[in-house]
């Protein structure tokens, strides 16, 4: 079964067409990257799949559940990390993880989730401090922990390493890879094309609301005779 199947998806904001009929699929246990410049439609596509935005036309299914009809079922199996996400400032990091985990399980399942969140966030004693006192990087680590602790079948990660330094970004990439090894499908977006090349099994290049090319990093580089994905993207949009 496909983790995500998007067919001829169109999304309008009033008179503005942000997505102009894109189609792609994400397989189970795969990291699929949507890459493109700012305003290309990456976040809009992720928000539609994450049940946040209505579909103008086309279809989206997540593990066979159709959107928007089965949005409730989809929310049980996904985890979404927005690009500019925050956490509740008056809660401590641990209280925030507890709050989220309560939506996904009780008893031992709940305890295991929180424990996994604590391990992924890896904030040490600071996990007991209020989120208000965290740096941007610490907040992002907490949110990555939140997104992956719930053992989602599909993790939708919008710019997962946004705002992180090199060391923390590498740690987040390692966590994403280990989640995939545990069976999670990942759909991520980034405009950091080198990161995507490192992380993703398959990539779709998106520009001006359209997918202009897709395949593995090697296939795309070969197709555009490029040394890296960044170069392939530049050649693709010309």
């Amino acid at each position, binding site marked *: 079964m496909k983790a995500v199947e998007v067919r001829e998806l169109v999304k*309008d*904001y*009033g008179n503005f067409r942000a997505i102009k009929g894109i189609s792609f699929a994400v397989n189970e246990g795969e990291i699929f990257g949507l890459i493109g410049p700012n305003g290309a439609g990456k976040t809009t596509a992720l*928000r539609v799949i*994450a*049940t*946040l*935005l*209505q579909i*103008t036309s086309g279809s989206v299914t997540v593990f066979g559940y159709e959107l928007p009809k089965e*949005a*409730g079922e989809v*929310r*049980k199996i*996904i*985890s*979404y*990390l*927005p690009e*500019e*996400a*925050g*956490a*509740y*400032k008056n809660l401590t990091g641990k209280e925030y993880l507890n709050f*989220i985990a309560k*939506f*996904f399980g009780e008893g031992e399942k709940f305890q295991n989730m929180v424990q996994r969140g604590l391990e992924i966030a890896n904030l040490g004693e600071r996990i007991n401090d209020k989120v208000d006192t965290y740096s941007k990087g610490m907040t992002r680590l907490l*949110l990555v922990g*939140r997104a992956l602790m719930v053992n989602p079948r599909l993790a939708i990660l919008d710019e997962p390493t946004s705002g992180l330094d090199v060391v923390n970004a590498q740690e987040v990439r390692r966590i994403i890879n280990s989640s995939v090894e545990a069976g999670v499908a990942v759909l991520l977006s980034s405009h950091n094309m080198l990161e995507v090349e490192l992380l993703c099994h398959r990539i779709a290049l998106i520009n001006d609301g359209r997918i202009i090319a897709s395949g593995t990093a090697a296939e795309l580089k070969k197709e555009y005779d490029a040394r890296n994905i960044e170069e392939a993207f530049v050649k693709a949009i010309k």
Partner: protein
Amino acid sequence: MIGNIIKKEFKELFILSTILPIVVIAIVFGSVGQMIGGVEESLEEKPVIGIVDIDDGDFSDIAMSVLTERAEVIYDGSDAEEGLKEVREENGVALLVIPENFSQNIYANHPGEIEIHWIMKGAGMMDSISSSVVEGLIQSVNQEISRKLIQQDSSSDPALVLNPTTRIDTTSFKGKEIEGLSPSQLGNMLNSQSIVIPIVVMMLIIMAGASVISSMGLEKENKTLETLLTLPVRRSHIVIGKIVGSALIGMIMAAIYMIGFSRYMSSFQISDINLADFGLALGMQDYLLVGISLFVALLAGLSLCIVLGTFAKNYRSAQTLVFPITALAMISMFATMFKDFDTIPVVLRILVFAIPFSHPMMAMRALMLDNYSLVIGGIAYTAVFTAIMIAVAVRIFNSDRLLTGSVQRRIPPRRLLWALRR
């Protein structure tokens, strides 16, 4: 340089969302003021009364002369029942009966009795103005009789000269005949018992409403809303959770406020009248109805606030959105405080009924007068209003509005129930 900063600040603060609520409040208060009418006009108007003079003596002639000069007398006869009927039909204030032996009693050093049958229309602060004018006329009658007594006979009892008449009040109000109280006394008594509720409701709505609207603003400002909306929880549960959470905060804040306020109010309590003596005391069932009315009004207010909160872009804009709620709560409070529901103009009456917060404000006074239909009707209306507002809020939560500021696609009504279940 400083001019540049002032210009930037002005442009940033002088925006439609800041100005509009203030303009709306100004217009609404102006309109309400006009509709309620001026106190001065009411004081200058001649009160409409009826007079039954059975005495036909020297002092009743003085009374008649003062009253006919300063009031609009629509009945001047000898049949009290007929007079009362006419006063009622002509929307008058009172029927004054000067009984037989009125003048004779005064000559005999006994105060002359004047029976006043008041027709009370409302228990608001402004409703008793016309009866106060009539009370003023009785004072004038007293003065004229005193003058006559002093001129005629210097041996009169000084106490009698100072107070030559006594009043026997009977007030007819919403089907009840209350003996021994004038409309102003009755109005003061009812207001002293029911004034706390409108203030509690206003504080509760403003404080809890501000909490829920701010919560929406903070969700957007702190970028937590997107995560919340992708969690496996029904949108209706998010809406209800926010409403109940804010209601609890609002109730705590209002309780703290009311402890101080009730102490403040208790310093003004001078009335030792027992309501039960006049059949105006509330029973357990009445208090239960007041409680239900208050609870549903709070839910209605908060569900309206959560709809408004969806327009908040951040914490600052959320603060601005509290103004419409404050205005509505204040309109309800002042309208019900100054005028009785039955005596306000029809347009304002519709407005007051439509504002759900008005119902608990009016409930206590209405129940004292056994007006159950207004209270139960108000509860039913408020419950329906709440259900509609929650449905609207859930519909907005299911649309793109929260994230994009506009509704991408209209959800057909037949899908509303399905949307509520999500």
